[in-house]
């Protein structure tokens, strides 16, 4: 598949390359005059980097990752809390999925209204030009690690609104999307299947929590 538009950068999310790992630069002492004005967050960052480098060189990082990775991964994949955010038709099915007949609570999914407490952003409808900056903000407000599910055709590619002047051609043009669920609207069962797919992806791809970079 070739698209004219640039897709979201996959490295964007994990912050790959945003922080330097150059040993000299990190271990360098702060300038002499700065000792007095050293702020606690800088100190913490410095300690963080130092610990990381020690762990890296001694091989401790591998050991710790080996143990913590499966445990943290377990928590992450069995308790994905989606954002309570509805755009269009699929939002109704998202709500219907928590109805007694489908009961998405069985899979440990609890809809949270604040983006700060969410792991999964479900884009469930067409993203219009007016909405795009807001959705981007919502995505940025969510704490790491976070995932995005494009639910339904409108969120995947614009769907029925492919020739509209105001609908963005898919959510992955501005945020990285992990799972695409086709359907118009997506059945609640298909949404659950999407979450199981996400679970599989987390188990395979998600790095351990310790010094995640």
């Amino acid at each position, binding site marked *: 598949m070739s698209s004219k538009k640039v897709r979201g950068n996959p490295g964007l999310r994990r912050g790959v390359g945003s922080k330097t790992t150059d040993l000299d630069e990190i271990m360098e002492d702060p300038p002499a005059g700065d000792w007095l004005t050293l702020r606690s967050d800088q100190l913490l960052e410095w300690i963080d980097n130092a610990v990381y480098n020690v762990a890296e060189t001694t091989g401790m990082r591998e050991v710790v990752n080996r143990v913590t990775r499966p445990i943290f991964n377990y928590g992450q994949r069995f308790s994905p809390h989606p954002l309570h955010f509805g755009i269009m038709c699929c939002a109704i099915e998202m709500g219907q999925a928590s109805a007694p007949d489908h009961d998405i609570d069985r899979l440990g999914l609890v809809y949270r209204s604040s983006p700060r407490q969410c792991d999964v952003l479900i884009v469930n409808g067409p993203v219009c030009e007016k909405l795009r900056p807001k959705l981007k903000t919502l995505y940025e407000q969510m704490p790491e690690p976070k995932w995005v599910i494009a639910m339904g*055709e409108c969120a995947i590619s614009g769907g029925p609104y492919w020739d509209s002047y105001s609908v963005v051609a898919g959510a992955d043009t501005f945020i990285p999307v992990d799972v695409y669920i086709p359907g118009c609207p997506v059945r609640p069962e298909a949404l659950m299947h999407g979450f199981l797919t996400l679970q599989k*992806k987390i188990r395979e791809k998600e790095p351990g929590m310790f010094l995640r970079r």
Partner: protein
Amino acid sequence: MSEKSELGIMDIFVNPMKVTMKQFFKSTFGKPTTVMYPLERRDPPPTYRGMNAVIWDLCIGCGICAEVCPNRCLKMKPVELSDDEQDRAWYGSHLAKRKHKPERPAINFGHCMFCGFCEDYCPTGAMTMTDFYELADTNREGLIYPARSMKVDLEDLPQLPLTNYMMESPVLDVDPCIGCSKCVDNCPTNCIIMDVGPQDKTLKSGKVRNVENPYFDYTICIGCSTCVKVCPADCLHMEPISNSSSSGLTTEESPTEA
């Protein structure tokens, strides 16, 4: 309905709790309504519009499904047919005559909205919709289903008549026709034949001779407008069924092209 005065202070919780208690005992000692999806599933009705499947033996590659798709998610892609498939095809005889490769629909499920128009407007009933809906994938390329991946084989094929659901059929404007017979080669149902034209024509070179014109068999025309698209001389156009004459040939009364 009860009026305000009837509600006492105890109705803050007594009345609502009557309902919830009842439900609690009902679903604790009975079975809750929940259908536990990964363990058990509720079958959609037979009419359910899920993922598409194409019965290749019935498909004639007319492209009506691509035409009526409001999302343009369906495209006709050229495919290589094996000899067996060629033999089994219901319209195999017509396919053999066509000059270009046979085409079959491929669907990008990243665009499809499962409206069912392709199924409804398919003149042979080759396009069907299954009840499969678990299409989630981790990348968008995985949502593109090539033509061959949607092929299904049925043991006993439904024998459906060719139906013109498009409510339109091609009409010839005789004057510009150059008799190239491209429409005949491309017609998926073989409803066009070339025959002697109504009158002789003066060509550009000055010669006068009779140019062969296409004649349409409207009983098996499906209104796919392939002939209109391939016509190099723009001598064909689509008209609603009621306007086109049943004899097959239109002469002077074509209103728009004059």
